[in-house]
Structures are given as structure tokens and as C-alpha cells.
């Protein structure tokens, strides 16, 4: 009960003290405001980056493993991988046969080539040789027209499905279906248009700049294995849970296809979303660390500012401390009064900081990337600001609390 009364009196007197020195309080809070803005912005940016990342690589699929010559993220030196044999379409076909009924297998080959329609050119379109099974792996289907059919692949037809940005830049408002475009020096007929997907952050692919052609046509024109281009084999598990088991089956089947002896190491790599997520987490860890270091420094500086002003406040009110002690205030009451005051200044800074960070987040959301403040972050920011206040207030408050009442009453 007594603690509650102390708290009420502390609140009352510290608020009136702060109101009596509004400008000083506001300036002091500035340090905290900056710190809190830094806290929230760091967290929000980290969250936003994580979301953007997830979006960018959503096409990778959580239930797909990729068999490639190279790992996506190199953990060893490049020379360990460069002598590996390239993966070719026969191996993909073999894998598909071996995994029949257990997984969907789709080979792809990529390269960049300019695409042209009349006088319009897109310089760096990503040309992807693939099969009709592409849609089963990525589950993105054309917005207009159709995707590849087995006979397109079987007969090496010169047909393509274009991404939304390619369509926009080559055709504008014209309907692209059944028009003929140049990929390099070859003419392909547009049979489908993919929906707008976006994504290009973090070096992820820009889906809207992709052009799909039959992998067989691709191989015939641009060469598969011989031209130094790798085939990537996507293997899609029936469920996400089955992926882990499937990964080992794929390794086993690939070793069989390549006739590797037990002692030999894999001469291919298995890639999956987790590989990217791990790499991403490493990068984000550093980003967060730097952000938190900056935040910590600004909060420390802000806290020192608060401590400084609390020393001033305690000195100014020496006489008040004397009066309070004379009429019966214990040390703890005086201590609480000043800690409360420091806490309130910092809480005010925290609230303003949250407001500013919120505006900043809206700005980031509108310009850079999707971002939003979560209630957890707001709560954390409030806790941090109060904590900084309490810590910054302790030493000055203690100085006030142990004043000798006689000396304090004599203070002018």
C-alpha cells in the first residue's frame, strides 16, 4: 500500500517537475527519441527484408529440391566444384523415370539473351528452357494463352511464354498471342503470357523478365551440355514433409545414374530453399548486429543525456528534497521520485520515437519495401525506453536520496 502511495506521489511530483521544464525535458528526450526510432526502424527493416526475401524466393518452393552442378551458396573453394561433370537432359530424364510416382522432375536451362519484337528490344531477358512440368513445380500458370505442352517439348517447337514485363516492353497494349519475337536470332511464337509476379530483391530472379521455351528447342539451338550451360533439375515432393526423405532418394538415384562408387563424393549439389534461408540468415544476422549496435550507442548517449539532466534536476531541487525529508520522506521515496521522473522523460521520448518510427515505416513501405510495425516491437520499444530512464535515473536519484536534510534545507 505504501509503495502505491509513494508511486502516486512520485508520478504527481515528477509530472509537475517535467511540465515546469518542458523545453529541457523535450531536448533531453531527443536522445531517447533517436534511439527508439533506431530500434524500431532496425527491427522493422529486418522484418521487411525477411518478408521481401521470402517473397523473392517463394518461386523456389518449400517442397522442391534442385539438383545442380554447383551449390547455390559456396561454402568451399570454387575449384572443388568446377571439375564436376555437367548435368544433362538424359540424366534428368533418367531421374524422372527412377522417381516416377514419387516426385515430379523438371529440367531447366537458363541463359540471358535479348528478345525483340519489331523495333522493341529487351536486352537481358532470362531465357529458360523447360518442359510442361514447370507449372507443376512452380504452380504459376499463364494469365493469357497456355503453357508448354508435351508435344511442344517432344517436337522442339519454336514457341514461348513471356513474362509480364517482357510483354509490356515489347508489345505495350498490343495482344502478344501468336505474334513472333526474336530470341537471339531465332523466331519464336508467343503462346502465353505469365501473370505479373515482381521480385528482384536480393539477387533473386525477376520473374517478369523470364521467357519460357521448350528445353529441347533450347538445347538444339543454344546447346545444352556442350555449350557450357548447366541443366538444373527441379524435383518436387508430393508434400513439404516428404521433402527431407526425397532429398536422400534424389541423392541415391543421382549416384546410381552417375555410377558413383560408395567411396566417391557426390559430384553434384542438392539445393533447396533452406540453403538460401541459411545464407540469408547469416547476412541478416550481421545487418541486425550493426543495427542494434547503432541503436545501443544512440540509446546509451540518450541515457547519458537523461542522467545529466537528472543531476541538474536533483541539484536544483535540493531544497525540495530537504523539505520532503524533514517531513518524513524516506530515502526510497526520494529515490523513486527522481527515477520516476527520468522514466517519464524517457517514456515520453519512447512514445514520440514510436510515432516518428511509424511515420518512417510508412515512408519505407511506400518507397523501398513492404514494412510494418508489429505490436511486439512497440511494446519492446516502450520497455526499452522505460528501462533506459530507470537506469539513467538511478545514480542522480541516489545522490538526491542520500542528501542530509539539514544541508538540503540550507541550500539556496
Amino acid at each position: 500500500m505504501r509503495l502505491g502511495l509513494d508511486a502516486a506521489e512520485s508520478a504527481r511530483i515528477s509530472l509537475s517537475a517535467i511540465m515546469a521544464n518542458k523545453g529541457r525535458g523535450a531536448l533531453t528526450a531527443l536522445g531517447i527519441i533517436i534511439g527508439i526510432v533506431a530500434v524500431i526502424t532496425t527491427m522493422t527493416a529486418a522484418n521487411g527484408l525477411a518478408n521481401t526475401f521470402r517473397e523473392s524466393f517463394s518461386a523456389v518452393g518449400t517442397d522442391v529440391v534442385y539438383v545442380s552442378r554447383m551449390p547455390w551458396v559456396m561454402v568451399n573453394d570454387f575449384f572443388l566444384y568446377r571439375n564436376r561433370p555437367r548435368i544433362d537432359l538424359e540424366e534428368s530424364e533418367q531421374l524422372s523415370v527412377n522417381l516416377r510416382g514419387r516426385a515430379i522432375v523438371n529440367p531447366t536451362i537458363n541463359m540471358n539473351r535479348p528478345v525483340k519484337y519489331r523495333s522493341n528490344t529487351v536486352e537481358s531477358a532470362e531465357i529458360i528452357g523447360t518442359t510442361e512440368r514447370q507449372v507443376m513445380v512452380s504452380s504459376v500458370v499463364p494469365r493469357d494463352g497456355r503453357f508448354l505442352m508435351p508435344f511442344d517439348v517432344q517436337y522442339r517447337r519454336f514457341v514461348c511464354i513471356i513474362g509480364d514485363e517482357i510483354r509490356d516492353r515489347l508489345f505495350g497494349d498490343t495482344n502478344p498471342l501468336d505474334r513472333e519475337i526474336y530470341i537471339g536470332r531465332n523466331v519464336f511464337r508467343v503462346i502465353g503470357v505469365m501473370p505479373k509476379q515482381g521480385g528482384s530483391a536480393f539477387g533473386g530472379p525477376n520473374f517478369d523478365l523470364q521467357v519460357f521455351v521448350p528445353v529441347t528447342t533450347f538445347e538444339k539451338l543454344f546447346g545444352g551440355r556442350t555449350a557450357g550451360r548447366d541443366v538444373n533439375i527441379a524435383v518436387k515432393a508430393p508434400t513439404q514433409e516428404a521433402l527431407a526423405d526425397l532429398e536422400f532418394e534424389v541423392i541415391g538415384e543421382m549416384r546410381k545414374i552417375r555410377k558413383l562408387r560408395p567411396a566417391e563424393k557426390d559430384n553434384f549439389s542438392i539445393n533447396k530453399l533452406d540453403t538460401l534461408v541459411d545464407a540469408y540468415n547469416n547476412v541478416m544476422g550481421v545487418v541486425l548486429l550493426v543495427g542494434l549496435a547503432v541503436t545501443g550507442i544512440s540509446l546509451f548517449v540518450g541515457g547519458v543525456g537523461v542522467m545529466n539532466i537528472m543531476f541538474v534536476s536533483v541539484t536544483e531541487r535540493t531544497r525540495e528534497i530537504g523539505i520532503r525529508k524533514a517531513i518524513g520522506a524516506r530515502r526510497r521515496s526520494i529515490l523513486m521520485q527522481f527515477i520516476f521522473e527520468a522514466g517519464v522523460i524517457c517514456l515520453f521520448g519512447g512514445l514520440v520515437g514510436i510515432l516518428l518510427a511509424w511515420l518512417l515505416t510508412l515512408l519505407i513501405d511506400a518507397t523501398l519495401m513492404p514494412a510494418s510495425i508489429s505490436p511486439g516491437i512497440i511494446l519492446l520499444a516502450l520497455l526499452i525506453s522505460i528501462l533506459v530512464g530507470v537506469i539513467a535515473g538511478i545514480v542522480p536519484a541516489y545522490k538526491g536520496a542520500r542528501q542530509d536534510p539539514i544541508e538540503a534545507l540550507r541550500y539556496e
Partner: protein
Amino acid sequence: MSASREGAMAPAAGHSLAISDVVKTYVMGSTEVNALRGVSLNIGRNEYVAIMGPSGSGKSTLMNVIGCLDTPTSGTYLLEGQSVSELSDDELADIRNRQIGFVFQTFNLLPRANVLHNVELPLVYAGVPRAERRKRAEEAIARVGLGDRAHHKPNELSGGQRQRVAIARALVGNPSIILADEPTGNLDSKTGEEIMQMFDDLHAAGQTIILVTHEDNIAAHARRTIRLKDGLIESDVTTGVQVRAGHGAPGG
């Protein structure tokens, strides 16, 4: 010239405070200053005492000891039968809160708090619940005739009114002793008289009052005058005569 040294005797029951052989030595740099050099003093309930003496006589030190703001270097001090000479800071704060009502020369009100808040402050530190606190503070304010000023800030009041607020604050916790240090020192003589009248009334109502003053006409309100000199009691005279007419029968 030591008259009626009651204090040398063992503290008797019924005494509000009993001080015996109190010595207070301050260390100032390399020199020791003996502010009190063996003071013994009993003050009974409902006494009206003036402590006088020139500056440097130890009067302020004695007041600080009596007011539990300071502890004696040696000697004993019983306040309401409780020894307070060896208490911790917080214990002394509790004693001041319950037993002592201070009235200072410079009023010492909290400038940002209104009259009501100033007066209820001792009760806040005593842990009295809000409603009761407010009721008792309002009673005390009414008792000093400032019922209509409860929500004014000290800087909106005259000096006399401020001192009344201080008296209300001293009264609100029902202390054993009201300890007034030059209560009229910052007031004009007319207002000073009004304040002294208030002390007279409080005494008549049964309150123990100790005045610390260097003015004879203020000390004349008291029934007993203790003069200090060089850290010792020089004289202790009980007049038993009420100087001002018409304020209750002489007690005794």
C-alpha cells in the same frame, strides 16, 4: 547561572522529550567544533518553550537534534519514551513524520504544489490512504483559516498565509511536538503577531510547542524560556505567565 536543571534527572514519564548530556561535535576540516557541550533538558506535554540564544550558541544544533534531523555525538534523547539517538536515516524520517511538525522561517513549501498537496504531504509519507489524507488535510487547512485557499499555489499567497499553510502541514500528522524555527522571521510584525497568536491557540488546545528564536517579544509568548550560550544551557526559566491576555487560563 544555571537555573532549574531538570534535565539532569532521569527522564520521567509524561515527558514529551528527555535529553540528557547531549554533545554534538562537528568536524570542520582539521578542527572540531563543539556545538553542544552536554545539554540536558526535559520538556513535558503541552509545554510552550522558547529556545533562545545568540548565533553560535548551539541553538540551531539543538533544534536539529530535537527535530530528529540530526543525531547527537553522545548523550541520549528520548522522544515520547523512544530513544532516537542511534537511529538510521529512514527511521529518523519516520520519527519526524509521526512526532515532529516543523515550521520554518522560510516557510519551505513546495512551490509547484498547491496548498492542499503541501499540507497532505506528511500523510503521503505516512502511508495514509488518499481519501483520509484529503479529509485530514482539509481539516488542518480550515483550522489555520485558509479553507478558501486550498487550491492556490504558495506564490499566490501572502507571507502570513504561507506560514499558516506550513503550520497546517505541521499539524496534519498530529505530532507530539511542533518545532518552529524563527517562524516570524520573514514576516512583518503585525503578521508575525497573528502567527504567534495561532501558536498560542494551538498551545491552548493542548499542543506541545517549541519555538527557536532570538527575539524576546516572540519568546515572550512561551511559558518557559531556555537560553543557550556556547553550547550549554545558560538559563531555563518557567514564567507560567501568559503574556497576552485572554488566551486561556495559565496552565502548569
